């Protein structure tokens, strides 16, 4: 009886030892040298795997950071400045200047501004509606309001406002990962430069129809009148296809354009209430 036990212990033990030796040798032979810094860098990254950096996941981005000499163009949109600095310290490389971005919804066609002309009762999907027809409003460019951008967001930063039926971005949570921009079949969402105190000034419309047609479908549509272009002291505003666009890199938030807009299509957000003229002159 004890023979059987001893024999089997010896046999299995010998097999295990042999296998261990083979495995050890194979591991030595085919050893892959991996930079230990990749693991360190990955540790610092948020592990959201959102793809906002342009790489498939955080590990791929960490590899890219380690391999590239000049990392000034590589940014993790989700990480804050501190963690990017830590990464730069690990790698001993120069970190580029962070240009924080934030998603901006360029449509203000709430039901009171852009009247509904029909009822859609099909599948709740912006992509499906846009492949079928123009949507519930007369505007063929505006938000369809089914919230595909909300579903796409991994950070809970975008929500539908029940009153306006438009998506709203929570600036603090938005990481500018680009997921909502890709999800929107109408290209309404844009990533724009993040300014101090989350101040924003932008044309909240992408309608390229002629003024009269656009205005008929929506009270706050850009009608392409060009008044804002004339008033801008920094040449930040361009007019193309009946639509004004404010270049976020050139705009210095002087707020001269917004009062000029006859349809209030230019939105100012998070600015203090304008003081009377005498006060600002001084």
């Amino acid at each position: 009886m004890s023979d059987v036990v001893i024999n089997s212990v010896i046999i299995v033990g010998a097999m295990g030892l042999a296998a261990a030796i083979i495995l050890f040798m194979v591991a030595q032979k085919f050893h892959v040298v991996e930079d230990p810094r990749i693991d360190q860098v990955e540790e610092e990254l948020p592990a959201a795997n959102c793809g906002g950096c342009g790489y498939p996941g955080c590990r791929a981005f960490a590899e890219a950071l380690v391999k590239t000499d000049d990392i000034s163009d590589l940014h993790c949109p989700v990480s804050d400045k501190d963690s990017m600095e830590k990464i730069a310290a690990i790698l001993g490389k120069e970190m580029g200047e962070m240009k924080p971005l934030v998603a901006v919804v360029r449509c203000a066609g709430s039901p009171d501004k852009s009247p509904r002309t029909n009822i859609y009762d099909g599948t709740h999907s912006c992509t499906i509606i846009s492949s079928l027809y123009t949507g519930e409003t007369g505007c063929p460019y505006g938000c369809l309001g089914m919230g595909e951008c909300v579903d796409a967001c991994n950070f809970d930063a975008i929500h539908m406002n029940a009153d306006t039926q438009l998506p709203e971005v929570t600036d603090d949570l938005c990481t500018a990962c680009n997921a909502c921009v890709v999800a929107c079949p109408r290209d309404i969402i844009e990533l724009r430069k993040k300014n101090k105190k989350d101040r924003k000034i932008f044309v909240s419309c992408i309608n390229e129809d002629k003024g009269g047609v656009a205005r008929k479908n929506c009270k706050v549509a850009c009608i392409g009148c060009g008044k804002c272009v004339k008033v801008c002291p920094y040449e930040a505003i361009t007019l193309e296809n009946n639509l004004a666009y404010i270049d976020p890199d050139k705009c210095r938030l002087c707020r001269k354009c917004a009062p000029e807009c006859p349809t209030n299509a230019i939105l100012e957000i998070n600015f203090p209430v304008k003081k009377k003229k005498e006060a600002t002159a001084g």
Partner: protein
Amino acid sequence: MIKTFPKGGIHPPEDKFSAGSPIQELPLPKSVIIPVCQHLGSPSEPLVKKGDRVKTGQIIAKSSGFVSTNIHSSVTGKVEKVDKFTDSTGYRRLAVSINVEKDQWEDNIDTSNTLKKQINSKAEEIIKKILDAGIVGMGGATFPSHIKLSVPKGKKVEVLIINGVECEPCLTSDHRLMLEKGEEMMVGVRLMMTALGVNRAVIGIENNKPDAISNLKTIAKDYKTIEVQVLKVKYPQGAEKQLIKSITRREVPSGKLPIEVGAVVHNVETAYAVYEAVQKNKPLIERVVTVTGKNIAKPSNFMVRTGTPVAYLIEAAGGLPEDTGKIINGGPMMGKALNSLDVPVTKGTSGILVVPQSESLRRPALNCIRCAKCVSICPMGLEPYLLRAASEHKKWDIVEEERSMDCMECGSCSYVCPSAIPLLDYIRLGKSTVSKIIRSRKQ
């Protein structure tokens, strides 16, 4: 045993209210809007500008590529503008609007009603005239007909199939045309046979149109090479591949064209348009449109000039009923709802269906109960429940592997689903995404 296609299919209520009303010529409207893209393919290039005077039948936009065709003015008058107008999808596309003054036809067009049986044209001449006349497939797909009639090298056509099935419920335009213009249509079929170089043509008609069948059978006695095939009523028998299967028992391989099995399919109304174009020099500027619906006062079949606003047609059929919920461009199965009545009738408009409020809303979708009804009725042998699930979860590789591109969007799956799941919506989404993926792969 009456022939039909073996796989899948449904039989929705036929509701052909307008089957008994003869084709009426509709008086000209005050103005027409003629889109420059009424066909599948690239939009035609406008040849007129604001202020030009045009005659009825004058070419106003010319073919701009291989898959494209010509557009003609359907009225005599002054061009008001060449601008973007809302089309049936609600998007704004380029069109020519003309203020109607009178109805003076171009000089070389024969507007008389005399039947011209003698065929003097050769194949090339016929095909050229069809392109010049801007003829497209009038069953709804609006694919330029001259391309389908030009046989590619190395391929042989054995049979021309004429589609008089009209399987779509409610619509009766083809039915009335076969009854009233049978003689002309038959000459059109002969012309198409000459163009293709075939000596056999089969006209497929479902057995819910006995008057049209007997009419065409009588006329066909004079034509030895044309036969009339009676088919069992089943939707979607009017789809190209199903019709070929019903008549020839041959199956078009996945992703291939009917010519692979030696068949070419054309609609009856296309045959009539070919007759008008070749024998009478008349371009495609009018077509039969069914205006129907449960509460429509006078369900009618109108001979309508292209560019006529839909509102004008509904007015002629007795006006819009009060409880209207939806107005559909086409039939109830494959048609699309309109969101404006100002859109024009185009070459592909076969019917305008007015649906009452009570019938126009969808039931709320419930969960899939795996009853597999959609699988058993899919005429293409697909698995709609699977395509929908894959498409909903963005598994585009599965959507592609499960042959979503073979779906012809007949809507039978959504029709039979006991849980009212909008299967077709998701399959369409899958199809459009997969075709984008395929295109990007080719580049």
